[in-house]
């Protein structure tokens, strides 16, 4: 009788102190397994996607898109593009100046201006004054936003002279740029997917005329690399 009672008591204590917590622990571990399995599944999908991507094609596409939207303000390509468009359309550039305060901070450190925040992109505002016939001016205004260094005409004003002198056009424009990313997320960060719309944009940019001769080479990937001299530019 006493032995049986002790066994029953032992069993009850075992159920309360060992079996029940073990079941809870197993439930917790099952949840952990589900989470890890989901993570592993996500990683596998990411790896599969990465394996299907051709690095050379991506590099070529990025190089093409970088000529349209460079990683910094790229003033040389900006001036070259405007001059190239002017030369192509037969207008002469009378004056060209950068408008607004251009910060000397690195592009990634520079804060977005109110106008840029509204647009959702970073821009270099500048103004250009050109002279030419009305057809040349029309061509300039048509071609400028359609070359592979994306420019936007914000405002413009045309003075029509009473005689046969060429028209003078003052144009306020924006050139677009976007700093390159300096860090990647963790391995489990979801890989961005190039949608059909993205591919259409890449194709459209690829078909745009590249006016600048000195197309920027694709920069070496600096993600994960440490500069030997942190003070070097």
């Amino acid at each position, binding site marked *: *009788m006493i*032995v*049986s009672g002790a*066994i*029953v008591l032992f*069993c*009850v204590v*075992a*159920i309360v102190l*060992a*079996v029940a917590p073990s079941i809870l*622990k*197993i439930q917790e*571990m099952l949840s*952990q*397994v589900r989470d*890890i*399995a989901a993570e*592993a599944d996500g*990683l*596998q999908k*990411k790896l599969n996607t*990465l*394996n299907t991507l051709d*690095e050379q094609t*991506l590099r070529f596409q*990025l190089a093409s*898109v970088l000529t*349209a*939207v460079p990683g910094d303000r790229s003033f040389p390509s900006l001036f070259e593009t405007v001059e190239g468009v002017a030369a192509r359309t037969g207008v002469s550039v009378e004056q060209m100046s950068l408008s607004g305060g251009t910060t000397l901070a690195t592009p990634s450190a520079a804060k977005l201006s109110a106008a840029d925040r509204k*647009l959702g*992109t970073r821009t270099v505002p500048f103004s250009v004054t050109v002279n030419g016939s009305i057809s040349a001016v*029309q*061509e300039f*205004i*048509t*071609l400028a936003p359609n070359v592979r260094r*994306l*420019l*936007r*005409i*914000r*405002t*413009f*004003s*045309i003075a*029509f002279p009473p005689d046969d002198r060429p028209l003078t056009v003052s144009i306020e424009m924006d050139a*677009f740029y*976007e700093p*390159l*990313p300096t860090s*990647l997320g963790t*391995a489990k960060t979801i890989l961005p*997917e190039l949608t059909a719309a*993205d591919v259409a*944009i*890449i194709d459209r940019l690829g078909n745009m005329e590249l006016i600048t001769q000195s197309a920027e080479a694709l920069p070496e*990937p600096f*993600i*994960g690399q440490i500069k030997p001299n942190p003070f070097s530019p």
Partner: protein
Amino acid sequence: MSNSDINLIRKDVSSSRKFSVLEEKLRLAAVWLLGGVFVTGIAIGTIYLYINFRVRSLEVTKANLTQQINLQSAKEGILLSLKERTSVAGKALEVAKPWGKMFTVLQEIAAEEQYNSLTVDETGKVTTTLFLGSIDESVAIVLNLVRLVDERKLRTPQLLSFSLKEDTTVLMGISFFPVF
């Protein structure tokens, strides 16, 4: 001697039997409980070992996958840059208006020599002043504007100023929004 004396012995016998039954039941319960705890313990142990093995196996798989993904970080970086840049390019293309098309509309409003000045502001409003030889020419301009509105080539035209000079020439200021 009464019958009750005999029943006292019977009562003791009954109590002993009940105790015996209770003891038997307790022993049975103890056996079942012990067996149950033992089987459950074995089952829990097995499940624990299996899950532990599964966790370790998944952790190893995850580590391998992470390593393989990290080896392709350059590709991932390029894809990330491409995606961001494409998004910016999309916005840039969206906000860039095809102002070149406006010149066709301008030619339909008036002849080149009739224009004095033209301004396009950030809202897309075109404001222009025209030098016209006569009131008839200004009427023709207004009719052209009305026609172009009907043809949905421009919207909200406004007559901003109108001045008639002694030599019957007209200086007219108009504004409108071209429709692209």
